[in-house]
């Protein structure tokens, strides 16, 4: 194996390690980000629904 190939193999090993380390961190932290995103959106939708109900009751026949 010549030195040029060896250099590329070392760079490949570093790049691959970085890729899988980032993937592992993202897998753990991303799941909590995902939960926050969905919880936040659900809360907004519920809030909008409540506002619509209040509006409907104030302009309704009663």
């Amino acid at each position, binding site marked *: *194996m*010549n030195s*040029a*190939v060896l250099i*590329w*193999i070392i*760079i*490949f090993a*570093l*790049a*691959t*390690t*970085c*890729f*899988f380390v*980032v*993937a*592992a*961190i*993202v*897998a*753990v*932290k*991303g*799941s*909590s*980000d*995902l939960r*926050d*995103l*969905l919880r*936040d*959106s*659900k809360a*907004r*939708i519920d809030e*909008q629904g409540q506002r619509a109900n209040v509006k409907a009751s104030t302009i309704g026949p009663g």
Partner: protein
Amino acid sequence: MNFGYLDWIILVVYLALTLGVGFWVKRYVENLRGYMVANRRVKVALGVATIEATEIGVITFMYFGELGYVTGFACFIIGILGMFAYMLVGKTGFIIAALRRHEVMTIPEFYELRYSRRVRLIGGFILFLGGVLNMGIFLKFDGIFLSEVLGLGEQAIVVIMVAMMVIVVTYTVLGGMFSVVVTDFIQFVILAFGMLIATVAILFKLDLVQLSTAVTQQFGAAGVNPLANPRFGWMFIVWVLVSNIAAAALWQPSASKALASESPEVAKKVFTYASLSFAGRAMIPMFWGVAALALLGPNVSSTAAMPRLLGLVTPRGFLGLLVAGMLAASMSTYSAYLLAWSSVATRDVVACLRSTDFSERTTIWLIRGFAIVIGVFLLVFGLWYQIPDTAYQYLFITGAIYTAGALGCVAAGIYWPKANSVGAYTALIMGAVAPASFLLVERWREALPSWLVFITDVNVSGLLSFVLACTGMIVGSLLTQKIRPPIKLQEKMTT
């Protein structure tokens, strides 16, 4: 081939789960902002997962694998250039921070803020054209990949293409960016696991000395030195670096992740952290391509070699996970791209032809309609079109139709006060000329006069597009400062 019953079960369960999640997430789409940019609530880790999943599809594995097979280790330079480009954009916030601050949903929206509605229309049309042409070969390569890995033969390619398109269009149309973000996350995790399995399986089958010998015997110095390789050289390196910077900041599917971020600071962090894995994203499939050369020899079809290798070396059971990972990768790419191009067609082309905007409801329905139309186009185009040169170069040259002009328009629009609408028109059109000419005349290379043959060199056309766009912006703007005074971004935003 090793694909057995267990692999099929894993694959079917995975596909059913993905579709289920796509349907389930639909309930979180409350309005257009939710549909297009997930309410701008995406945090760093989720942003990294979604940008990675968008930028890695079966097509990515195919074109990088093909490069590894036909150029050896020399192509690894592309991974380093990609990492450097994303790092630069992330660290400096080049373009993305400003776009996020102005809260645009598509890049051409910025053209209207800074230049005019007509610039937005033309920019949107060029972006749509370049984007859909760029995506045109995805399905075919996915079909080749899956038919080789599953051992189904060429006759299965069309069936695979139709099935994939139906699944992806369905969940993208229903859930928009929410579906994209949620399924991207799941898909990135499965995909990374699949990549790990494939790499380990290859290393069990082949040692590094075998790979080294195969490359040096087949290519000599050109297999390890990108400057000595006839496909690469300095011009290629400069073009790919500039192109990667432009694509990182302006390619709608990845830029939309910055636009969906919680803040400009989060957008910068997403790009910086994602850059750390961009070298691996390219080098891992390139390594598989080199391994295919070592195991199968140099006489296999360059597109089929890498998937054939994976089908041979990955053990039963794990192959199902690998294919699920690859499909995951592809589906996340398709959904992000479909959403990006259909949003551009709706908001930046069709809506710009009218004097008043569409309602949110109509906009969402139009985006869904365009996603279906693009899906059908991809099927037809994928079956009919034969790519010139390598898939990698086709993707970069079609991307340049848009990115060259867009880089001129957006970078100058943000950082150069003298940029005006005439400069923007000139940059957009001149940026598209060289790559479009390449695609049109490449097949008739022999019939061209000798002084025009340079345009059929993909590296020259690619680099030329950025030079022309930049020149067009500077000359066009400077010559027309009096008749078309520049509009200051802040003034336009507040009026």
